[in-house]
């Protein structure tokens, strides 16, 4: 353990930790943009700079290692001034349409400008002026809101390992883009629309296209952690709910799910609007003369019970077949086989394991 002082507090932290980690372990939050525990470090955004006594430069907390006797000030006047200017610089080169931005309410730039009282920038001038890339059904890329944290690039390189993006150009013109600047749908693009880049983007540069313009982030009433219903990976995810509607999916970052870093695939992230579809079955249906009509539960259940019992009474339980489902829960599969076995005394129960 290493002894150091952070903001006047004597604290201990594990050797090898960065200032950011040591501060966090001791309940002190330092703002970040380009840092993500799941990704390699960049040390690029410089918003996490802190003052280390004896050092000429401010240190980027996300990459600076701690040492014995270190004295750190995470929020000194010098630090705050640096962060404010940093924010002013980002804000000056930002498409400032927060009113209608999808990210409003969850935007890291918005949040920090709020916290540091940056209401305007002294450095307004030219802006990055790129087209908005609306080239696929899943997400929109608006690099005029990009702060070059590079997390999308690293997420695609290190988590998804499709290596779709890198920075292109240099200096003020630097921004993430695809190889040859092709559309994400182009044949040269390795993108599979997992949206792991969208999930790590701190601003409105990468946003989901589904449900665009239909809700504000702060309207989300709850985020329910659950297990994805597509494929056998069993990924954890969060269903975001407004009213009785699932409006979007966010990653489950609890670290205990089978999907490392909360990574999802395109279905797990963009495939749940079927839940609230108009054509969901909402009532029991009984077929009469080749046509369905709505029925009450009582009527439908009575009909089913009498028909199943009738067939079993005449032909034996083995004349019934129960097809369970690999898409329903364990509890439901259990009850299905119990129904066939305990109620109708038949082992004619199976599901689509082989299909």
């Amino acid at each position: 353990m290493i002894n150091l002082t952070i903001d006047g507090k004597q604290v201990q932290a594990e050797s090898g930790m960065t200032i950011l980690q040591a501060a966090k372990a001791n309940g002190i939050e330092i703002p970040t943009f380009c840092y993500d525990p799941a990704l390699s470090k960049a040390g690029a955004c410089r918003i996490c700079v802190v003052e280390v006594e004896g050092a000429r430069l401010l240190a980027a907390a996300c990459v600076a290692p701690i040492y014995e006797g270190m004295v750190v000030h995470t929020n000194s006047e010098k630090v705050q001034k640096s962060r404010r200017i940093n924010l002013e610089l980002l804000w000056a080169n930002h498409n400032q349409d927060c009113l209608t931005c999808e990210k409003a309410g969850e935007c890291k730039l918005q949040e920090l400008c709020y916290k540091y009282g940056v209401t305007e920038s002294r450095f307004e001038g030219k802006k990055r002026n790129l087209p908005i890339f609306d080239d696929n059904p899943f997400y929109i890329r608006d690099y005029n809101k990009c702060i070059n944290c590079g997390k999308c690039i690293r997420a695609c390189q290190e988590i998804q390992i499709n290596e779709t993006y890198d920075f292109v150009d240099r200096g003020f013109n630097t921004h993430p883009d695809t190889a040859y600047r092709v559309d994400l749908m182009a044949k040269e693009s390795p993108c599979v629309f997992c949206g792991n880049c969208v999930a790590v983007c701190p601003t409105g540069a990468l946003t989901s296209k589904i449900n665009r313009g239909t809700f504000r982030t702060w309207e989300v009433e709850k985020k329910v952690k659950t297990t994805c219903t597509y494929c056998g990976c069993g990924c954890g995810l969060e269903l975001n709910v407004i009213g009785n509607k699932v409006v979007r999916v966010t990653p489950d970052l609890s670290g205990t799910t089978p999907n490392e870093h909360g990574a999802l695939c395109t279905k797990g992230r963009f495939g749940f609007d079927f839940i609230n579809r108009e054509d969901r079955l909402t009532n029991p249906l009984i077929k009469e003369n080749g046509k369905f009509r709505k029925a009450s539960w009582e009527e439908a259940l009575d009909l089913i019970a009498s028909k199943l019992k009738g067939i079993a009474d005449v032909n034996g339980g083995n004349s019934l077949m129960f097809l369970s489902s690999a898409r329903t829960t364990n509890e439901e599969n259990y009850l299905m086989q119990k129904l066939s076995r305990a109620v109708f005394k038949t082992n004619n129960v199976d599901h689509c394991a082989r299909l």
Partner: protein
Amino acid sequence: MNYIETDGVKIVLRNFGKIDPLKVEEYVARGGYESLKKALTAMTPEAVIEEVKASGLRGRGGAGFPTGLKWSFTKKDADQKYIVCNADEGEPGTAKDRLIMTGDPHGLIEGMAIAGYAIGATKGFIYCRGEYTTSINTLNHAINQARENGFLGENLFGTDFTFNLEVRSGAGAYVCGEETALIESIEGHRGMPRFKPPFPGGAGLWGKPTVVNNVETLANVPVILDKGADWYKSIGTEKSAGTKIFILCGNLRNTGALELPFGMTVREVMETYGGGLLTGRDLQMVHLGGAASGIMPPALIDTPLTYEDLQAVGQGLGSGVILAIDDQKDFMSYICSNTHFFEHESCGKCTPCREGTARINEILHRIAAGDGTLEDLDNLKDLGEMMQISALCGLGQAAPTPVLTSLEHFMDKYVEAVSGKKNEVNEEAVATEAIHKSYYEAAPIKLD
């Protein structure tokens, strides 16, 4: 490049003009590769490092870090280490490394082999600016000759020391003069600096311990081993030992490069070797040390050219450029050309530099065009000071230096510029701005 002959002692340019750089035998005839032989056969690596430490040699790339100390910081246990020569001479006004590479390439090669031996590196890279095609060709030629003559390769001088050398060409990026950006570039990546620590001495090229030294620094090493640390230390001043190549340029009668012991004042060098300004002109300022260094007012030109004396007056030696600017030149226009350079050369990785260099440049162009305000001056100072302490690498940290030093010494000119009337705008400034603008419009390249 003009070379100005001096009477004094020569170290890195000892062979310049005296040998055919393409003939290794001429280098050998003047004692070449004897120091390498001495190091390999008569000295331990530790002893070499100690000798260099004792000589007081400091990095000639601009930062002035003690070379021996840097070598001693190299991680000891590693399966592979590298010595890298920083020959990405991009500091505007600087033309010293080019002289060494084209005039005495074996001096550099020998210095690198000795450095490799000292730190335990068996492989070296010379990362040379892509624009320096002659230097690259000369170096490749010299490396082949050195290999053929047993000065590079396996079992040098019958010892078990193996050392190979390769030249890598840069591709037009000033930031690659920053050592970690340079390493990234050798690895084949965008030349974006890494955060430190880890320092290259711990984890550099391909994650292996690496020492990066400037051309001029390395070229000193054979002489230090040959003549000894004490001899070397006797040249120059106590804290600035040895000699330095200075480049006289700008509005002087004579311009060119010359090697001088540390310690002459700026004025002495400009007058003795530069012949002073053209008749009828007065000195407006000296941009000393390169684009990333401070702007020196005439009042300070009696400062001796040493690391310590310049630091004491808030200036820096940088790479040794002495760019004299006379009173006929437009002040704002010159400052703008400088800020334009940094905007263009910022790698774009960290926010302070990527956005900051652009905004500084923008504000200065605005001021030059007569649209500036007094608040702009405060904003420049705020922004510049923030960049100095918050940018990721030396480029971003140093980029505001000319602006901040000129604000300190030439506030009257700024105030004049922001309070002047728009119709009195200097034509030169407008022309410069137009050039810069067209440059940017041409910059983004979009594939069809």
